[in-house]
Every structure is written in structure tokens, then in C-alpha cells.
């Protein structure tokens, strides 16, 4: 069946009033789940599964997918307003989003995030619709050595996340890598750095560290200042409530960059949306004409990662629907849902369930429009949160953070870890260590270690496997090049200095 008639059939399914309603329910729930830190789409979908047994599968799939991509829209809200990452994929959004909010441009940042999410979300669906089967085959060319190279490329982004001191950024990253190593060794099942603590066997949850270092650290640092009664300037005037034309112009490339990178990384079953958002942010900064402004509140620093984590959903559905291979926690539970409804996800799924597939695709176009219409008017409303005086807002942030962390694992141990990482975040701020490299190291560390050790098992300990496979070699060279950029800059500066003398 060709794309056009498929899509027509899909809209016929998705536009049925009941399915429209379920799509709406899904995206609203998704937005809420995205806004709340901690509780993520997998847990929400799992909770709603019993309900879906009473629905027809197309409606259920439309709703559950709505939760999945809707959460990506909501995730940016608390990142921008409170420096609390709502989802792991929104950590990078904190950097420029929160900086924009501090400049009184919270509304513009939220608006840009919503628009970037819409553009990239739509591009993701287009990709899913047009190139899913061939792309899934290409994704199979990726194995452990390629994943290692991809993670290395992500890690190289540290030079772009560094503040004034490269050394401090690298140190923070190493601490992140170390934290990633805590827990049970995935290969030999030996425990590492667990100090006999059962709770540490499963490692340190990324959410705990990100919320601790970003949100708690920020609150502590701000309380020390305690000069202003109001935490952040509330946006004044229409210009700061919504993005301006200039903002949108600045983000032209970021929209495209986020969409494409997010989708491509999403297709790889072993990567995930967090790395997609980091890489897209790095690329944006690398090609920008004003890289020095990044981290101080530029709209493209919000648009790129928010776009990437939205088009990633379209990408992540590719291996799920074309091969029956889930890449992330959310797609794993979607796969389980399909099985429980009596489907057999696998290579023949799309051709044998045309109506369901095209209905889902069409509903994702509709859902993205719904989300934009839903989120843009909420922007000025959310921006008013910043009118809250500091003595209300800061305890509120602490409360939200604790509840968020507790809701992930239901363990008080994680809450004490949150406090510890909050103190670490505070210290890092005081000593001028950037926190993003730490989170980057933590996100990539586990997957990178696994990929490296798997590669070495494949090659019986021969490191050359990383350099002899073309995709991996290309990505590693690129990573090396990025790492060398600051060195070139430095050399260049010395040369100019020498010339002047």
C-alpha cells in the first residue's frame, strides 16, 4: 500500500470521535506526567494497562503513544521554570532554558520549547511513516563498537558544555562516569562501590543525581544569596511572554538539527533520547555563530535539545514496529501492551496491521497539533509561577524534587541520595564546576562501558575492532576532532600573541 492511501486510511481511523478523544486524553496525561519530575511515561503506561484491555487496540495504542510523546512536551516546563529536569531528556534544556528564565524570558523559552517540540515531533512522524523499514535495517548495522563510538562522541561534547575551565569540566565528567559505575557489574555480577548497601546494587538513578545537582543545588545557592524577595524575574510585556520573530529566526537551524539528530538517534535501539538531546545541543553550539552565548540563555539552546527529544519518539517507534525490538523503557512497555492485546510484534507487524499502524501515525500528527494548541496558551500561565515569592517557591521546589525522586523508586534511600547530590551540586556551584558534564558522564557512562566490554568480548580483547569498523571509526575520529577544538583555539591564541609581540 502506498503512503498516501495508507495515511488516508489512518486519518479515517484517527479522526473517529472516540479515537480523537483518546488521543486527547493521552497527550494531556503525557503533558502532566512530563511536567511532574520523577514519574515517567513507562510507569504511567504500566498503570493504565488494565484500562486498555477494555478498549479497542487502535484507541489504546493511540492513547499510550500520546502519553509517550506528550511527556516530552511537558518535560521542558520545570527545566525552564525551576531548573528541575522533568524527564531525563530535559536535562540539557535546563542550561539555556533556565538561563532565559533568569533573564525574564521564561515565556519565550517555554514557547520555543513547545514550537520546537511540535516541529520535531512532526518530522519524527514523517520519518516513521516514510522510511521506517529501510532505516530499521540500517540501524541493525549498529552494534556494540558503534554504540561505544556514539557514546564517545557524546562524551566529547563535554568540551562544548565546559564553562571557563576545561579542567573542571573534565573532572566533573569523570565523577559522572564514576557514579555510573556504581552498582552491579553487568557482566560478572560483582558489586562495585556498593559498600554492602543493598540499595546501591541497582546503581544510582540518573533522576536522583540530575534533580539533586540541578534543582537542590540551585535552591541552596540561591538561598545563600537571599537578597531578592522574588526568585526570578517574572516576564514583563508581550515580548517576553512568547517567542519573538527574532527568536524563531535564531532557531531556524536548531529546529532542523534537533529533528534530524533526534530521529536518527531514536532509531538506534541502544541509544535513547537523553544522548540525542545532548548531541543535538552540542552540534548546535558547534556550528553557532555565537557559541560564547550558550548557557547564558539563547533560544536555540532550548530548541535543539527539546526538538531532539521529541523527534526521538518517532524514531524509537521504528525498531519497535518494524522489528519488534524495543529500545527504551517506554517502548518496552508498549511492546508488552501489544503482546497483551494479542498482537505479535515483529517484522510482519505493520503489513498485517495496516489500520493500526496508519491510525497511529495519523493520530501522532493530530496529537502534535493538539499539544501545540494546548501548550502555547499555557505558556503565559506557567510563566506566572515565577511571580511566586522566593520563600514560597524554594520550599516548593524542594518538595517537588523529593516527591519526584520518591515516586521513581519508592525508596527513602534515594531521597537521602538526593540530599547528598544536592550538597554536591551546591559545592560545585560555589567552586565554579559546571554540572552538565557530570550528568553527561553519568548518562553515557553505563552504556559506554557495556558497549566497550561487549566489543572487546566480540574481538577477544582486540581494541582494533573499534577502529576497523567504518561507522565506529568515523564517529571516533569526529569525537577526537571535537576534543581537539579547544586545543586548536588555544594554540591559535598563543600564535596570535606571539605574532603581536
Amino acid at each position, binding site marked *: 500500500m502506498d503512503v498516501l492511501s495508507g495515511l488516508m486510511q489512518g486519518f479515517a481511523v484517527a479522526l473517529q470521535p472516540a479515537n480523537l478523544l483518546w488521543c486527547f486524553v493521552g497527550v494531556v496525561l503525557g503533558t502532566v506526567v512530563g511536567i511532574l519530575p520523577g514519574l515517567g511515561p513507562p510507569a504511567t503506561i504500566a498503570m493504565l494497562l488494565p484500562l486498555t484491555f477494555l478498549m479497542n487496540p487502535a484507541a489504546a495504542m493511540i492513547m499510550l503513544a500520546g502519553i509517550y510523546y506528550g511527556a516530552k512536551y511537558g518535560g521542558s516546563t520545570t527545566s525552564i521554570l525551576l531548573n528541575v529536569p522533568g524527564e531525563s531528556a530535559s536535562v540539557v534544556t535546563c542550561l539555556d532554558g533556565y538561563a532565559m528564565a533568569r533573564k525574564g524570558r521564561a515565556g519565550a523559552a517555554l514557547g520555543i520549547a513547545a514550537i520546537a517540540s511540535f516541529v520535531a515531533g512532526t518530522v519524527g512522524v514523517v520519518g516513521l511513516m516514510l522510511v521506517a523499514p529501510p532505516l530499521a535495517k540500517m*540501524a*541493525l548495522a549498529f*552494534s556494540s563498537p558503534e554504540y561505544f563510538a556514539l557514546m564517545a562522541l557524546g562524551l566529547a561534547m563535554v568540551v562544548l558544555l565546559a564553562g571557563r575551565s576545561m579542567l573542571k569540566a573534565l573532572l566533573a565528567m569523570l565523577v559522572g562516569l564514576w557514579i555510573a559505575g556504581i552498582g552491579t557489574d*553487568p557482566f560478572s555480577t560483582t558489586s562495585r562501590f556498593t559498600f554492602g548497601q543493598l540499595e546501591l*546494587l*541497582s546503581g544510582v538513578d540518573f533522576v536522583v543525581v540530575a534533580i539533586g545537582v540541578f534543582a537542590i543545588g540551585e535552591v541552596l545557592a540561591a538561598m545563600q544569596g537571599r537578597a531578592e524577595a522574588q526568585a526570578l524575574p517574572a516576564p514583563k510585556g508581550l515580548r517576553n511572554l512568547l517567542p519573538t520573530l527574532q527568536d524563531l529566526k535564531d532557531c531556524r537551524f536548531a529546529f532542523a538539527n534537533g529533528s534530524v539528530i533526534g530521529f536518527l538517534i531514536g532509531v538506534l*535501539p541502544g541509544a535513547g533520547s537523553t544522548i540525542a538531546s545532548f548531541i543535538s545541543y552540542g552540534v548546535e553550539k558547534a556550528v553557532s555563530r555565537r557559541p560564547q552565548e550558550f548557557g547564558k540563555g539563547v533560544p536555540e539552546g532550548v530548541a535543539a535539545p527539546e526538538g531532539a527529544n521529541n523527534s526521538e519518539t518517532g524514531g524509537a517507534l521504528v525498531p519497535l514496529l518494524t522489528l519488534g525490538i524495543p529500545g527504551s523503557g517506554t517502548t518496552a*512497555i508498549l511492546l508488552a501492551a501489544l503482546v497483551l492485546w494479542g498482537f505479535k510484534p515483529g517484522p510482519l507487524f505493520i503489513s498485517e496491521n495496516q489500520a493500526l499502524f496508519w491510525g497511529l501515525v495519523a493520530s501522532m500528527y493530530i496529537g502534535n497539533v493538539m499539544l501545540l494548541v494546548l501548550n502555547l496558551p499555557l505558556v503565559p500561565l506557567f510563566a506566572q509561577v515565577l511571580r511566586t515569592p522566593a520563600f514560597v517557591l524554594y520550599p516548593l521546589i524542594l518538595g517537588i524534587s523529593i516527591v519526584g525522586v520518591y515516586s521513581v523508586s519508592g525508596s527513602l534511600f534515594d531521597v537521602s541520595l538526593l540530599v547528598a547530590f544536592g550538597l554536591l551540586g551546591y559545592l560545585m556551584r560555589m567552586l565554579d564546576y559546571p554540572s552538565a558534564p557530570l550528568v553527561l558522564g553519568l548518562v553515557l557512562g553505563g552504556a559506554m562501558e557495556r558497549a566497550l566490554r561487549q566489543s572487546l*568480548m566480540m574481538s577477544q580483547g582486540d581494541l582494533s575492532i573499534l577502529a576497523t569498523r567504518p561507522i565506529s571509526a568515523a564517529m571516533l575520529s569526529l569525537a577526537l576532532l571535537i576534543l581537539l577544538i579547544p586545543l586548536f583555539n588555544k594554540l591559535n591564541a598563543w600564535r596570535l600573541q606571539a605574532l603581536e609581540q
Partner: protein
Amino acid sequence: MEKRIAFAALSALVAFGGVHPPAWAQGYKPARPVEVVVHTGPGGGSDVLARAVANMMEKEKLLPVRMQVVNKTGGGGAVAAAYLAEKKGDQNTIGFFTGVWLTNPLTSAEANVTLKDLTPVARLVLEPAVIAVKADAPYKSLPDFIAAAKKSPGQLKQSGGSVTSRDNVVRQLLQKNTGAQWAFISFPGGGERIAALLGGHVNIMVIEPAEAGEHIRAGNMRVLAQVTDKRLPAFPNVPTLKEAGFDVPSVPQVRGVVAPPAIPKENVAYWEGVFHKLTQTESWKKFLADNQFEDGYQGAAELVKFYDEFTDRMRGILKEAGAKVVR
């Protein structure tokens, strides 16, 4: 297998023949929603089974209350087991275990709660497995693969779960039996294992039949042998390990139900009754057929015996594999 059927028949006799009266006639009945602890995240094997069971319980009206799945992930089941141990005497909690709950404490010093510290309730399913290669691989049979592995020791690769997983146990048993050697590469996610095989990065894998089914139908995969005692209905032409000429025990993945320590006997009897009833329903039979699971029902008494047998066998296998055994 025959023994298992005999067990099932015996327990059926016990339940229906009135050797002891049906448990739900006695005192205990859950009054609040029951918490069901699983050790995998949403979408993982135990999680999916627990949610499917919760759904069937509701449909067949076997429980007066709802079942709520609680994910306590980490430490290969250690966190979930410890959580159940902490709930000592709690009457509204049960857990779904797998064989990992028995093998993990063998190698992990921190995992100090074993199934023996919890109250056994019932064994529910045995998941058989098949050995698969990519459709365009040169190996037409398991002996083909073994011969190729012998020719170039350590060069061929198998993708699988952790070193204590069933996948690796099957490999260890085959290696010991034949003298061939090949590498085992751990992938934590089931999807990555399949992707590695389909992408041609590894040569062979042990896979659940339902998962393999779709890839076989699409012409991407070929099954060389089945890790079962007798042929599965879906694979009538594929030899079992024994039929393929390898005298190794078939290692099923086992799943069942446990309760916290120190709960009253009548509660155990109640749960045993409920789960036994469940295994008699049409929904359950359809669920087993859809997933190509085997009915592995055992009551509490047999389950304890099974623990010992299974643990001893695994201890031997792990020691031979060179893993550090701490218990």
C-alpha cells in the same frame, strides 16, 4: 516432564478431591488491594506476567480485590527479594519470582535474601527456549554450529542476558558436553540481543519461542534446536537438544509466586488455591499457548524441593563456568 505432569495431576487431585478442604473456605481473604512485587521494570518478563495475571484474575473473578504491580528493580532480583523479606508477616503482599532469585544470591554477596527466606506459594510456568541463528547463517543444524565452533575455538559468538541467565547455562552445558568453545556476550535488554543476531554481529542465541516465532515467519531467523524435553507444538520439525545428539538437561526459565516470611498457613493455602484455580481457566490456557509457555504448576510443598534441586544444579554450573560462588 512426566514427573511434572504427575505433580500437576496430584495437585489437581489434592485441590478437587478434598484431601484438604478448599482454602478459601477458611478464614483468610485479602481485604485490601494486593501488592504484587516484581523485580523487572515495566515491560520486563516478570512485570508482563504479573500484569497479565492481574488481568486474568479480574476477568475470571478469582480475587475479591485488585492486584497492583510494584516494580522493585535492581540487583538481579535482590532488591525485590529484600523488599518482600522486609514485609515480614504482611498479608497483602505477594511476589513473582524467577530462577534468577535463586541463582543471583549464589554469586552476589549483598543479595542475602534467597527464596528460602520467603514463603513459597506456587510455581506457575516454565518457559522453554529455542536455539536460533540468522536465516542466512551457514549452520543448518546444531551439530553444524558445534563443528564450526570446534574448528575455530572462541571465534563464534552468542548473544544473551547476564552470566547467570539461562542463555549462558545452556551454553555452558553444551560446551562441556562437546568440548567446543564460543564467546558469550551479555546484553541487558532483550531487544539488543535480537538486534545483535539480526545485524550479524553474533552467530547464535537462545531465545523464547514466541519471540523467535515472528522472526522465523518473516524469514529472518532459523531455529536449530529446542531447549525442551519434548517438541513444542509450534516447532514440530525442530529437534530437542537430546534428539539433536546432545545429552544435556533442558533448562527451563521458571516463574512462580512467593509471599513474605512468617505469614499464616491459611494464607498460603488461600493463595495456592487461587493460583491453582487460575491455572485451570481458559484464559490461562490461552495465555500459555500464546506465549508458548509450559504449565509448570507446583504447590508450595513441591516448590521447596524444586528450590534445592535447582540451586544445586546451578551452583555446579556456575562453578564450572568460573563464576565466584559465595553461597
